[in-house]
């Protein structure tokens, strides 16, 4: 475990070596607040909950998570630091985990900084804090899933731009699967059964059921297995690249 922590530590603090980290955090906070108060009509709903806050998170992540994940491997490959990194005594698994955890923690920091809105809602009314905690877990999990997908795609390319666009598209599709739009598009081609199967892969369904405060292990398992799958994919890609 120690090698992973060493890597995570380095990677996490590396975010703050450039202004990019601060820009990301500020953008994340501003957008999430804007969406909550304007698009989500936080005050108009007149309810002491954070539904309107969490509602937009998956969409926000489609834009922002690829910006974090794109640099994970593509940048190392482009600058050549990957050669130094991969000749240090770390296994590929440790490298992948270390980098992923750092990025996940970084997004977690962004989420932690949204705490004032939680405090506000507690000051204004008496929300169900259990629901809010489960919702935070849900949003953290969906961010992690997107990140692991981004990590895998970033390992495939030298170009951060390519990694960004691919990740954004992939995340978008994964969200769309669970929304009402995509099944409608395909309703002519697919049977009811396939549509249902497709929808069960949609991220939104699992996300919304968690944000309603239903702590279902299956939903958590859904995200955790996706994270594991994508991280495993990253390891395979990196090991494969050594032989190409």
């Amino acid at each position: 475990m120690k090698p992973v922590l060493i890597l995570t530590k380095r990677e996490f603090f590396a975010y703050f070596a450039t202004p990019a980290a601060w820009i990301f955090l500020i953008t994340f906070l501003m957008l999430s607040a804007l969406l909550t108060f304007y698009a989500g009509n936080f005050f108009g709903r007149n309810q002491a909950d954070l539904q309107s806050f969490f509602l937009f998170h998956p969409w926000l992540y489609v834009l922002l998570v690829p910006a974090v994940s794109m640099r994970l491997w593509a940048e190392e490959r482009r600058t050549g630091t990957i050669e130094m990194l991969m000749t240090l005594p770390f296994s590929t698994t440790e490298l992948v985990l270390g980098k992923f955890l750092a990025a996940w923690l970084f997004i977690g920091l962004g989420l932690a900084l949204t705490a004032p809105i939680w405090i506000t809602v507690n000051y204004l009314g008496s929300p169900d804090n259990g629901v809010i905690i489960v919702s935070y877990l849900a949003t953290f999990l969906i961010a992690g899933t997107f990140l692991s997908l981004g990590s895998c795609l970033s390992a495939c390319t030298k170009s951060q731009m390519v990694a960004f666009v691919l990740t954004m598209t992939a995340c978008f599709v994964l969200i769309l699967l669970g929304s009402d739009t995509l099944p409608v598009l395909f309703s002519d081609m697919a049977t009811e059964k396939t549509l249902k199967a497709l929808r069960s892969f949609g991220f939104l369904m699992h996300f919304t059921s968690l944000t309603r405060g239903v702590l279902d292990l299956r939903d958590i398992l859904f995200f955790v297995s996706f994270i594991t799958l994508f991280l495993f994919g990253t390891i395979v890609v990196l090991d494969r690249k050594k032989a190409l």
Partner: protein
Amino acid sequence: MIDLEHVTRKFGPFKAVDDLSFSVKKGEVLGFLGPNGAGKTTTMRMISGFLTPTSGTIKVCGIDVAEDPVAVKRVIGYMPEHASSYPDMTVLSFLNFIAEARGLFDSAKEKAVESIIDQISLHSVIYQTIDTLSKGYKRRVGLAQALIHNPEILILDEPTEGLDPNQKKEIRSLIRRIRENKAIIISTHVLEEVDAICTRAVIIDKGKIVLDGTPQSLLTKSQNRKALFFRLPEYQAQRGKAVFDEFPGLEKIETIETTDKTVLYRLTPVRQSNPVGDLVEILHRQNIEITDMYVEKARLEDVFYAYTSSEHETKVEQA
């Protein structure tokens, strides 16, 4: 301590390394030479575990790189060709990270980092971020990174490339100091470097070994065709030229430069001969004054040329 057996590495259809076998023993400093694209970097990357061979086995300290890459990486210090270190980190935090990655913590870490900063004289830049460093310092940081854990195996890909003569000298004397009890592979483009630090020289071309011998044998070979320069006074140039023309051991005689007082000739001797003494003696006997005389420095390109130009000469020559 480093053993390569029939190692082949392909990039698509291109064979970068072709059935390469050699070993490096403890105490040896192997100068790894060859024209660009000969397969030096690929070979070094395979030993350090950054690339995997298409076929063949590589063992480091008896451990198969394919079986336990992490254990191999632990005993190796590797300096990549471009010595890339994280540009946004300061030298000190970068070295701290490397020390931790190498399993050094607390006082052991402090000691290792301090001693490497001393050895490589990095004091003045430890709080600077790496992207603000000069090329020379960047390479030194790369070297520090490779040496911090005092590895048994050292693989340095062109460690002195881009350094000024003083820095080159420093790095060479550093390598000479630490080479005992280590097996070192150094790739280089500079012939004098092989002479200065290596105990053995290997030239590869198109992924195959074309020469494996001592640095001395390499230098001797390179001197086969060294050109001689004679500067003669203008008024005696005519007679001097006649001497050169009559001398049997010269393949080519060129007039390089004519000033109002002197003429400079470049003489290419035939292979395997050293006519300097004879020429000087003849000129002296004929009372021809030699204003200046020098022998062209051996160039690695010429050695490469001698060994890599003709296809049928590519058999391994044990010198």
